[in-house]
């Protein structure tokens, strides 16, 4: 997939249903999504409860 196609996929996704639609596009949109990830992060508090590498080890 060339960069033009990538751009097109992202545009379609964004015009449809936002981030969720972009996610539903699957593998093909993954790379460009990761590179242009939505900067609005979830709450820091919530991210802390999601297992991360900083979570206490067993």
């Amino acid at each position, binding site marked *: 997939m060339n960069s033009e196609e990538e751009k097109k996929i992202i545009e379609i996704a964004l015009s449809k*249903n*936002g*981030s*969720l*639609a972009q*996610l*539903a*596009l*699957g*593998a*093909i949109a*993954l790379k460009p999504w*990761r590179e242009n*990830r*939505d*900067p*609005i*992060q*979830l*709450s820091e*508090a*919530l*991210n802390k*409860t*999601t*297992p*991360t*590498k*900083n*979570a*206490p*080890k*067993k």
Partner: protein
Amino acid sequence: MPQKSNPQVFVLGWDAADWKFINPLLDSGKMPALQRVIEAGVMGNIATIDPPLSPILWTSIATGKYGDEHGVLNFVEPAAETGKRIPISVLSRKVRAIWNILTHEGYKTHLIGWWPSYPAEPINGINVSNHFADVNSQNSFPDWELSEDHVHPKEQIDELKELRIHPIELTWNHIAPFVPTATREHVEDPKNHELFNAIIMMLARCSSFHNVATHILATQEWNFIGLYLDTIDKASHYFMKFHPPQQKHISDYDYELFKDVMTGFYVYHDMMLDRLLDLMDENAHLMILSDHGFYSDHRRLETLPKDSMAPAFEHSKFGMFCLKGPGVKQDERIYGASLIDITPTLLHLFGLPPAEDMPGNILSQSFTDFKEPERIKTWEIQDDQNWGELDESVKVDVWAAQEALQQLIALGYIESMEESDERLLDQIQTENAFHSAQIKISTGRPLEAIPILEEIHAVKPENTKVLSALLSTHLALANPVEARKYLKLMRQKFGTENTPQLDFLEGRVLIQEVQPAKALVLLKKAASHEVANSGFYQTLGRVFLVCKDWKEAQKVFTKAIKLDSENAAAYHGLCVAFMRQQKFDKAIEAGLNAVGIKHMFPTAHYHLGEALFNAELYEHAANAFEMALTQEPGFGLARKYLIQIYSEKMINEERKTLHQQILDKNMRPQMTIVSGLPRSGTSMMMQMLKAGGADLLMDDIRQNDDNNPKGYMEYEPVKKLLTDNSWLKDQNGKTIKIILQLLTALDMTCDYKIVMMDRDLEEILKSQSKMLGKQADTLNLKLMTTFEQQKEKINGWLVGKPNIQVLHVKYTDVIENPAHEANRINLFLSETLDEQKMIQAVDEQLYRNKKEEKTI
């Protein structure tokens, strides 16, 4: 099915997806991709299998075998080396799955996330296991490693693992559609963290598997892709309680915050489906199905009982099914599908034959042009070709598996236990045995279930689930003797607790003992309690039907329907209750509802036909009877009605002759047998029946004597029954005396109603001794034991015989209360006898006995 050179079949598993939830979304245009699939193909309900536990069911879907055959019987299994409890793996599966067969047949076969599919089997394509996207504390983003046993082929692992989405990668915009009213304050409130986390964990997980599917569609050759997503099930367990309408126990705060989550996940599944459709060739077959449904209405449970099966109580009996593709009918509904039919249907799509050891059928209604293929004996053949199976030496990664276990505990699927606990193995074995018994019961093999349940009961007598299963299985087998034994144990266990349920069960036992008056008292008492269970009222209604209390039956069936508007059996019962009250229009309406909900329901079609016949709507009645016969060709009563309709109402000689010929050919002779040990009162019973008008088969070879002054009422050929039973089939309608020890020699091509005389063994032996001129009070204990064993053996043999009904009658009850017993016997024999004359016959006997006593 016309064969393409390069078939493509995509199976999309949506665990717990339910039409009841989907339909309003389709109507409001929120699931357009699924709408396209439905319009292009067939859709219908798919019946689940009890117990509705996903690993068991998805393995049945993939193998065409029931759980007791395929071996996956639980969420967990003991690891071979450590004995630790680990999530269920492929290693528990004892038979081949569709992907093994397709690999063997050379098809490009890919599998994504199937439950269970770990360790990944080396099939002819990509296989990522159900633990591929697991997130745990040991293995976190961005260093999110993946061990090799989750992926096949191993060289693909680096590329595939990048397709996983870690929950931490998701942003606010991703979860906003699920919780549109949420604010930052909501998210930061610690009490909401568990549920917000659940959303992002589930969203990341299903998106990871979806990414693999889209990757395969875009880059790989394929003939078969199986994609399994557990998200709808998991989301339903977390969030269905918040779905509209608001339940009383849900706070306004929680309701407003989480009421859109379930709709959000269904809509997201539709968005993923849309993408899959884009990537799929139009000529590919697509099958979407779930393994069970999920209650989303008033049947949602407020709290779950503490039980390993508890989450399954939220599962409804029917899942969803749809199929589109070449050769599949368009925009049509199919009926009667079961999970066990999926593998035969998939094999058919590949032009491969189902096997004789697969109990399911090809879903033939789905196809425009269908010819039943010849089955092969089995796919479990041994050859040196590639079946895509694991090497026997493969072991599972127990350490990694422990993390996945935690999620099952969090969802309530399994109990949290000390993993070193010695009870673990024992518990898994007991649960597996119980699940195996449940499967056998729910698939029409209750006799096979009984020894398993008895074995568990012997070591765990305190296990009430097993007691209850034994009781209901014996009830299902019409074996009130054993059912009463377990009822007594349950009464001892519960004391005054659960009285309505136990009264209800005792009512059922009493009905089988043909004690309708006593049953009614208990059942009315049970019905006076408020029980929020549609099945309870439905069964209660059936009992009222047996008792011919039509109004009470109507009342409780209506209650059952109020609690569950999809209870087809309750509508069927209501149809009968209305019909017996001559309310034919209402009976027709209820009957139509019953068959509308559940099409494969021959007795409902029959009673609908009966109601239509009584309403003089003969053409419709004929259609209903014909449908009953299509579904159950041995339905003789439906055939009799059709013969009457075609000969008297709407003349059709050809159809009449056809039905008459089939009926004549298949009519089974039916006889009444009076049985018991010698001297248990069989001659007295024969006299009662004779007096009542029964047609006795007897000769005068054995003359009357002092012991039986009115004669033995026997038939000489009975004595040779063990060597010749060929004469029995010519005795239709006769009543014959056959001692208990000879019953196993009955001709099983005939139907029998057995009046079994029970008399205290001590009394029998005394009577026998007296008859043989021996000292009457000399008891032979050895003989007593032998008789007891024989009685037990024969009673066991009689259980579950579909052509035999048994009524136990106590000799002393006949003597003490002949009117009551005469009524029971007459009810058992379809009210064909004169009860007064039967009572009189006993009185005469009593008079004789008393006279004898005086002369002794």
